[in-house]
């Protein structure tokens, strides 16, 4: 089973799951703060809304489109304090 790090927390996830599901199953919510500071989480689950963005191995991605892989380092935008 792939093992990855979410905001420094080590977790295992079933192969074939998304990074978004790994974050949600670990109870890591919200995923970011909006321009005016509101907490936000994933909305569409299919790559449309961009609300699920997080930094995976240094690159900002939509986590609902990103499968888990062994050794991934995932950080919420809240955590890296960076946003677009």
């Amino acid at each position, binding site marked *: 089973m792939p093992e990855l790090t979410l905001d420094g927390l080590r977790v295992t996830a079933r192969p074939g799951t998304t990074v978004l599901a790994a974050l949600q199953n670990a109870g890591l*919510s919200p995923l970011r703060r909006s321009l005016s500071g509101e907490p936000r*989480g994933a909305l569409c689950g299919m790559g*449309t809304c*961009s609300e699920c963005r997080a930094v995976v191995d240094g690159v900002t991605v939509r986590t609902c489109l990103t499968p888990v892989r062994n050794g991934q380092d995932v950080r919420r935008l809240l955590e890296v304090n960076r946003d677009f």
Partner: protein
Amino acid sequence: MTSEWEVVVVGAGPAGLTAALVAAQGGLQVLLLDAQPGPGGQIWRGAAAGQKGAAGDLLREVASHPAITVLSGAEVVAAEAGGRTHLLSVTSAAGLRHLHAERIILATGATERFLPFDGWTLPGVVGAGGLQAMHKGGLDVRGRRVVVAGSGPLLLAVAAGLRRAGARVLAVAEQASLPDVAAFGMAAARLPGKSREALALATGLLGVPYWADCAVVSAGGQDQLQSVTLRRGRREITLDCDWLAVGFGLVPETRVAALLGCPLDGAGAVQVSAWGATGVPGVYAAGEVCGIGGVDGALLEGFVAGCAASGQMERLRDAPRRAALQRRFQRVLERSFALRPDRLPTPSPTTVVCRCEDVRHGQLQPFTDWTAAKLQTRCGMGACQGRVCGPACETVYGWRFGGVRAPLAPLPLAHLLEDPSTLGPP
């Protein structure tokens, strides 16, 4: 990978999978690409090739056909129609690449329509199909309290699916009236194969309250969703829950089609002939990008477009009759779940409408069209490029969204610097 293809199919849902298989059977070299990590589209997300049933069979046949190349995790971000070949720009983990296609079959499906109400931006408020998609992506919903709300038959499929996965579905709240929902049920039952499916759905939902004529009022919570308030008649009900899965029907995903110049119909779907041809020579379309009609319609249209694109007209004998049946079903679907203003959530002046740029209802009310609102408030100019607030503004303010421009998704700057042509002239 070569960049010249006889056919490129965009979207690997039921429509795209069928179209790709049929075109390959007709002797063409096919590239089937999709933004999702695997093929299957919205309904068959996460299905495995070879598993029992129609999805597994189709996925296996596509995966093993020597003339089909499947490219997952690849999103079309720019498209340009040409005389003999068309150009598609595709982003993936490997970077940006350009493909030339003699024929394109668009099977880009649909997205959910979200409507703004107080609290809809709280984590835990998600799309109805969205929660289903998250669950198929590995989200554990066992024991979680879920309220499913909004409109359309998708709510029922979602509620049944989540329940099977161990969630506690507290209620399904539908804005349409009970007679309209019943009329839809009757029409569905007349379609071949549908009555068994409807029965399975109903059995899966035994004991779950189904409230028609029901409006979503607001979602409550601090940093996380805690409750939802619904209105039935004059009564308001508040339910404590972990997830609010809320969607107001589906909207055809026509962005790639728009970049290619395909004309749309009055309902905002790609206009096609009986053979799946769009208004642009060499470009075909199939499935929910041509109108919302469910998986059976998508399969049929995929078959038709695949035959037409590969010149297998003899296989299409029975298609017009089946298509007429399907269209009738589609019209009942539209009529039954038409959105009713008095049953929709009403935003307050401080309700966020554009989530990317935090533009609020009060800021948008003074405007009369999308362009003015966009220029003055940045509504629709954030990361999602109007994919969420566009359909919302269409319903709430009656504005037609007309902002499709390449690139369709944010790209890493490095990709653009390598290849500035993707942006094109404004």
